[in-house]
């Protein structure tokens, strides 16, 4: 078999190259997020709910929310009290607005505590390993084994009432709010720590880390400047879902009576004891705060799901 019949081919210039536009990672992620209808709907709902809680306080004062008049207790929803009144005659609508502020505040701040502690512990154990890793991983496992709610109930009893009431942003907060924030954050950090640690374990083997070290980068800058930015995606997702988790947990322990103390309202403690009245068909005590919790958790879950897909580094499609 000879190939002498093949004429000599001359090179042709490279036209007709199809160029794909160069997008930054954030733009790419945003594009993918936008395609998730549910996630976008969730984000919109989230904004609306936050507006409800913040702008709503322009319409009702906190005193109004705490104002109780036993003569109008347990009234069904009406024009004057669109969500009805509670067991001591307080307007439920106003209470959901102020309760929402607390619930959101707890959700966000507890998440911050969880993320900060979790990232720090996960980063150090993942990067350094050694005995520090062994000890902290035992602790992580230990906390993870006992269901969070049991730990919370014990700690709520332990710490309850140890922090005095505070006054912030023109509102009075029962000190139990701080307590709740701390204990939720301090029992939820293992989830984040595990994620961050596994990210660090895999990323630190990459060659660009070796290159950075060869260039004389300090440990601090490697951890926070190189590895951490590369693990941002699962952290963001965990943080988002952590907010929902914190709001739900606060609702649980307030519902069980060990959470935020009255008169400070939260969506959770508004439900406390609501089941005692259910036989009388009094649905408005639990329906509205419960619905609000459901809506915000649902919205956060949608957004979290969308973020998870949008930030997945393996998918390069836009």
């Amino acid at each position, binding site marked *: 078999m000879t190939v002498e019949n093949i004429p000599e*081919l001359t090179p042709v210039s490279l036209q007709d190259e199809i160029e794909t536009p160069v997008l930054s990672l954030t733009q790419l992620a945003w594009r993918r997020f936008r395609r998730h209808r549910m996630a976008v709907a969730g984000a919109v709902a989230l904004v609306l709910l936050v507006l409800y809680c913040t702008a709503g306080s322009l319409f009702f004062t906190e005193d109004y929310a705490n104002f109780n008049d036993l003569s109008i207790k347990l009234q069904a929803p009406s024009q004057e009290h669109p969500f009805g009144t509670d067991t001591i005659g307080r307007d439920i609508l106003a209470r959901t607005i102020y309760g929402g502020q607390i619930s959101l505040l707890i959700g966000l701040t507890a998440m911050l505590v969880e993320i900060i502690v979790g990232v720090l512990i996960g980063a150090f154990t993942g990067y350094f390993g050694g005995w520090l890793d062994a000890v902290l991983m035992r602790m992580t496992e230990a906390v993870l084994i006992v269901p969070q709610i049991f730990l919370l109930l014990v700690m709520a009893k332990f710490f309850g009432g140890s922090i005095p009431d505070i006054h912030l942003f023109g509102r009075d907060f029962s000190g139990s709010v701080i307590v709740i924030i701390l204990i939720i954050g301090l029992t939820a950090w293992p989830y984040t720590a595990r994620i961050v640690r596994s990210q660090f374990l895999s990323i630190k083997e990459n060659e660009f880390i070796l290159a950075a070290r060869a260039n004389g980068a300090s440990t601090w800058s490697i951890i926070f400047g190189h590895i951490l930015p590369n693990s941002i995606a699962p952290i963001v997702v965990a943080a988002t879902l952590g907010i929902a988790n914190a709001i739900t947990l606060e609702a649980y322990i307030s519902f069980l009576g060990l959470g935020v103390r009255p008169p400070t309202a939260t969506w959770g403690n508004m439900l406390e004891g609501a089941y005692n009245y259910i036989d009388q068909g009094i649905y408005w005590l639990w329906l509205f705060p419960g619905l609000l919790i459901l809506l915000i958790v649902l919205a956060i879950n949608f957004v979290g799901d969308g973020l998870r897909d949008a930030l997945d580094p393996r998918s390069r*499609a836009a």
Partner: protein
Amino acid sequence: MGRILEVKDLVTRFHTAEGTVYAVNGVSFHLDEGEPLAVVGESGCGKSVTMMSVLRLLPEPPAQIASGTAFFKGRDLLKMSEEVIEHDVRGREIAMVFQDPMTSLNPVLTIGYQIEESLKAHLDLEDEPARERAADLLAQVGIPESPKRLAAYPHQFSGGMRQRAMIAMALACEPSLLIADEPTTALDVTIQAQIVELMLELRQRRKLSLIWITHDLGVVAGLAERVLVMYAGYIVEEATVDDLYDRPQHPYTLALLAALPRVDRRRNQRLKSIPGAPPNLLVQPHGCPFAPRCEFAISRCRTENPGLTDVGPNHRIACWIDVRTRKQR
């Protein structure tokens, strides 16, 4: 020797979020009983999609077989109902072997099970006879101690053995046609040679018709009698193996052969690559698909798609130009 498969004007498209992918654009070919046919082309040229379309293995949506016919032993495969093609054709008359034996075998089922299920589904065999036959099949493809091997799981086999097991699975119900989609691409060169040997042997013994999809021109030389060259969902050249290597007529085939690294090349000669980029399949084809990269192209090539025309006995190409004279035919 009769004609066993006749495909005419097959058009397959994929409807995706990014648009429509024109994967196969009017492919026609035939296969005779006992004949080994090779289909070559670069990744994305539509060779796998063509064969998967014939067996109706593509998920429809997003795939769509827009038009065409595929007559196998007198019946149009493209018009058959799913139940009929599943029961009568797949695995029974036409079988397929795929590229990566590690992922193409189910990791949680034994090799024996995966062979026997075919036998039970198509030939209604009972447990005992099925097991015996499975052991026999493994022996035929060159796997030693076959009865014990039936209880093994895919991960316990080596790469070559897995591919042999796949072949055994495919041939279990004695199909008339075997389609092999790049079966040796994922294997070592030495194992590759063994598998090709095995195929030749099986083909002889069973009078099997064979379609071998590959992008490796070396394998083609050892195995096929006829070759189809595909590009961008079209067949651009169809020839006997000898004609293909001695008298290639299509610019793409020429470029492919020229790009082969050769031992007898001068030391400082550069490797010839094909300039330009593979075609964007999201764009509806217009004119000859190779025109943008073809050094022989004239204006007619960009506007009119040349169909397949005869340039010799059993030799057809889809081109407006005669490459020896560089003038239009």
